[in-house]
């Protein structure tokens, strides 16, 4: 019975999608809870204090800051997208709201996005085909919004051969197809 209540992935499946094309491996993320945190007008100092106490990093522009349990990356002035392990933080928005108080606006984002971890020896050529981010020049931990195959996505560089992509969940198939098509062309 409990098994029947297990949430489906963005692809309508029970298990995360995993694809290997040549040296590239694409792994769908189903174990990450997401929420956005934005400072209310004039309350940035309050948010900084509460975030520091809660162990929530608030990195500068174009940056991803890893942490335990909360990682986050910058998405807009005074606004961040926060990641946490799904198993322990399924109610991430409630948890952040309780921790950050009324200086921040928190919005649940887990089911708005589909995430993929991409790994290969070197992702540069793939990224050159997919988006306009200068992947080779970007430092590790670079996080930015960009466009892949007409879809607005967040791209986080974790190393020369490791990146995470968050795209619109309702376009999961299209985004995966775009990445696969670029990978097949390179393989």
């Amino acid at each position: 019975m409990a098994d029947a209540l297990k949430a489906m992935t963005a692809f309508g499946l029970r298990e995360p999608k995993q694809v290997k094309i040549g040296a590239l491996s694409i792994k769908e993320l189903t174990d990450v809870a997401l929420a956005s945190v934005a400072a209310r007008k004039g309350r940035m100092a309050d948010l900084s204090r509460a975030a520091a106490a809660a162990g929530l990093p608030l990195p500068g522009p174009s940056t991803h800051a890893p942490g335990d349990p909360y990682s986050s990356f910058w998405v807009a002035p005074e606004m961040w997208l926060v990641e946490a392990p799904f198993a322990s933080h399924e109610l991430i928005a409630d948890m952040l709201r309780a921790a950050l108080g009324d200086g921040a606006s928190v919005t649940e984002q887990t089911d708005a996005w589909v995430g993929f971890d991409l790994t290969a020896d070197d992702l540069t050529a793939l990224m050159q085909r997919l988006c306009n981010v200068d992947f080779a020049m970007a430092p590790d931990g670079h996080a930015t919004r960009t466009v892949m195959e007409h879809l607005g996505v967040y791209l986080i560089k974790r190393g020369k051969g490791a990146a995470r992509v968050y795209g619109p969940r309702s376009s999961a198939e299209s985004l995966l197809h775009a990445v696969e098509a670029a990978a097949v062309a390179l393989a």
Partner: protein
Amino acid sequence: MIIHHPILGPRDAQEFVYLGDASLMDRPDGMTAGIEEFHEYLYQRGNPAGEHRELWYHEQGDRSWLVVTRNTVTHEITKVELARDVARAKGRSK
């Protein structure tokens, strides 16, 4: 065309959406300004051959509104500001 975003650095213009004349930010108070002033705001636009201040929205980026000063003849961009900062400098609250 490259727009030098004040926070994110050089970004391709395809990431942005163009809204138009930056004077759109200065909407007159509909309750106190006369109908002439509002008509002017709503319908009248300068169409200069030369320097033009215009609003751009960084849709595929950090979603900020920018005030871009661009030469409409050469497409040279001489200044890019966050619209938020421009409005606040005029004493507006947002």
